[in-house]
């Protein structure tokens, strides 16, 4: 694991988009340290899609880097630091979200030599060492954590802070790496993170989407959108137009990052088991 020096907030980076002489700025707020979504080196799939939008709008990208923690939307988009957040859950309350551009699912992540898990009803979940992300927002956590506790599965569940140690690269990835290095037997993680880091292991880890897809009202699949400030309707439509006009390009980017898809937006969605 590499130990980069990351700033949690407030680092402003100005970048010229490849399209060159542009008449406008595309001001974007992103996490500088959270692959596969984004990072300061612009290696995330959101960075790539933002680049594509900037070319479409003939705009220069201006990134404000801010760790994605509680208050992210309030401190960035809603504080006027930027006009666009390239990834958030559709319908999120604090901002206006675009139509979704992909939909993914929580997945079970196992080592390829282990018996796969695909359902919360699988009795093996009572004995395996399970890892999930911890959010702890007013006592709420990721949906799989609730699916487990609802079934009385708590003693063999280990929490990995979604925030992690921010000095490390991509702190949420610790959960997936814990499967590879056998700290846990199965991780239940959000698809894009799982898909990207599972593929980096050798041999790659196995993904199975969780079943049921909705558990006692807790959804396991979520549509993902970009977000603009409330009231910024013209800009939102521009973004939606750019997204729909580049559907194939977006699908290719998401496939390149091994994002598990459960949507009908694309004909080339990467099949998952």
């Amino acid at each position: 694991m590499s130990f980069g020096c990351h700033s949690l907030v407030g680092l402003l980076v100005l970048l010229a988009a490849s399209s060159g002489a542009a008449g406008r700025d595309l001001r974007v707020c992103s996490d500088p340290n959270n692959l596969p979504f984004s990072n300061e080196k612009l290696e995330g799939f959101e960075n790539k899609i933002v680049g594509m939008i900037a070319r479409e709008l003939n705009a220069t990208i201006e990134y404000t880097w801010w760790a994605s923690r509680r208050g992210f939307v309030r401190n960035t988009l809603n504080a006027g630091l930027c006009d666009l957040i390239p990834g958030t859950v559709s319908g999120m309350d604090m901002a206006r979200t675009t139509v979704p551009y992909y939909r993914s699912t929580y997945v079970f992540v196992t080592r390829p030599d282990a018996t796969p898990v695909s359902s919360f009803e699988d009795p093996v979940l009572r004995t395996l060492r399970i890892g999930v992300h911890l959010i702890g927002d007013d006592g709420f956590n990721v949906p799989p954590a609730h699916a487990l506790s609802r079934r009385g599965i708590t003693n063999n569940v280990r929490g990995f802070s979604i925030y992690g140690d921010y000095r490390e690269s991509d702190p949420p990835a610790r959960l997936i790496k814990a499967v590879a290095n056998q700290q846990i037997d199965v991780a239940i993680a959000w698809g894009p993170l799982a898909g990207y880091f599972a593929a980096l292991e050798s041999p790659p880890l196995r993904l199975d989407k969780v079943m049921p897809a909705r558990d006692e009202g807790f959804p396991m699949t979520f549509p993902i959108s970009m977000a603009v400030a409330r009231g910024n309707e013209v800009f939102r439509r521009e973004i939606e137009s750019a997204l729909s006009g580049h559907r194939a390009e977006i699908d290719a980017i998401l496939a390149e990052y091994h994002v598990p898809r459960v949507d009908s937006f694309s004909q080339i969605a990467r099949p998952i088991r």
Partner: protein
Amino acid sequence: MSVIRLKLFICILPLLIASATAQPSHPRPPATAVPPDDGSWAMPAKNFASTRYSAMDEINVGNVKNLQVAFTFSTGVNKGHEAAPLVVGGTMYIVSPYPNILYALDLTQPGAPLKWKYEPKPEPAAQGVACCDVVNRGAAYSNGRVFFNTLDGNAIAVDATDGKEVWRVKLGDINRGETITMAPLVVKDKVLVGNSGGEYGVRGWIIALDTGSGKQIWKAYSTGPDSEVLIGSEFKPYYDSDKGKDLGVSTWPPNAWEQGGGTVWGWISYDPDLNLIYYGTANPGPWNHEQRPGDNKWTAGVFARDADTGQARWFYQFTPHDVHDWDGINELVLLDMEWKGQQRKVIARPERNAYLYLLDRETGEVLSAETFAYTNSSFGVDLKTGRLRTNPEKEPKLNRTIRDICPTAPGAKDWNPSAYSERTGLLYIPHNNLCMDVQTMEANYIAGTPYVGAEVKMKPGPGGNRGEFSAWDVQGAQKRWSIKENFPVWSGALATAGNLVFYGTMEGWFKALNAETGELLWRFKTSSGIIGQPITYKGPDGHQYVAVLSGIGGWSGAIVSGDLDPRDGTAALGFVNAMADLKEATTKGGALYVFRLP
């Protein structure tokens, strides 16, 4: 008729006078914890017993109506100002919210000009980590030094004369979500500091540093094995539920204690006779309650520890297996009183769960627990087991709408400390009157991961007022009077021998009441909402002054200081819904106000 009435009056009058002057039965703080009042204010709670009571009476019920501004000072910071100013030897010390500037004002000069300032320059990243606002609850003065903490997890000692840094030690790591907002307490040659950040899965601790060097003397965690909680042979808890080996491990699912919360961001008291410190631990986290079955020791309770070694003497858990986010960090007021014919050393504690506890501070036994605010989430405290009798119908449940849960997450009373007057025998409690609905879930997203959370909406409790300032008869274990306030009362209280009690409102009113009756005698509108802790001191001119920091913010005031959108009722953990009109009542901006008689 009239003759008879007159006779009666004459008979009763001498009795009234006698009871008013002799005050035979009022509880009193232990003398060793409350030295004779020299007019200084060297720690936020004034003294080790945390009474926030001054023996000065130059300003009193007769003349307080003439109180006027002596001087003001802008802190230049727009966040919530929760600190108490300190005054020692002709200098006033105030610490601002982030960026935690320590100012020294020269009280010997007209207008109290700036003597020096010390800027610790905390890491900007800490702002993004603090849960509710970037507050600081004050400094402590001891032996020529001022001690305080920074949001990014440093404890600092500064020379009180020239503002030069004496030592600075990094105790918390913001990369792991750890911050420090509490005011330290200096006990003998140790400065005591605790952490914040339970929302991020931080494991709570309190640490004792050498005042001379900043070196760690002991450190006690709030969760985990006995060896790390500093539980040993001296540990004698009163109730069976606190007896057993490594309960800080076994009352959790495996390893959940490692990120179990129980941070120490509130108040510490000290009994010099028993050589024990007392402090509360915050709520368990960050698992939701269904995922952490068990009592979750040692969160949401109070520890008594040996001041020299840190070894625990007893523990009492106000809220076992907390499901409401009730941090048990409120103030602990040390009093000696007669209880059922016996002289007892007690702690008076207004707790989040709406009960005013009297605890025996030698043993941890609950002597009484009576409600000082409205609650429907519990039915009292079982004095045999010490256990809160909770109402399962008001437990927040996942994916279910539950209406009218009272009190709310900040509790019947949050961190803002009460004051105790040994003259009236009353504890003056600034508190909340809020209920909440936990409604259908809403989609949320953090660090690339979607999830659903509760839509928490706070609202005024019974009566329609959101705040209250109550006078509690400690001996009689009942409320004597209370003042309704429109907004939650988020300031501290101050009581004086002038038979006055002071507090501030979130609109910005600074008020003086008759301490016996609650009658409003004087008020002054400051420039911003008040969430700070008022103090009083004797100036270099020999006269009494009263000081308070104005500057809205904090959890309840974040709608103003954090520019939250009033349409987003669930921002600031659901508090914004109850506070939407605060933006019309005040604006942000930190300023010190100091008052005196003409």
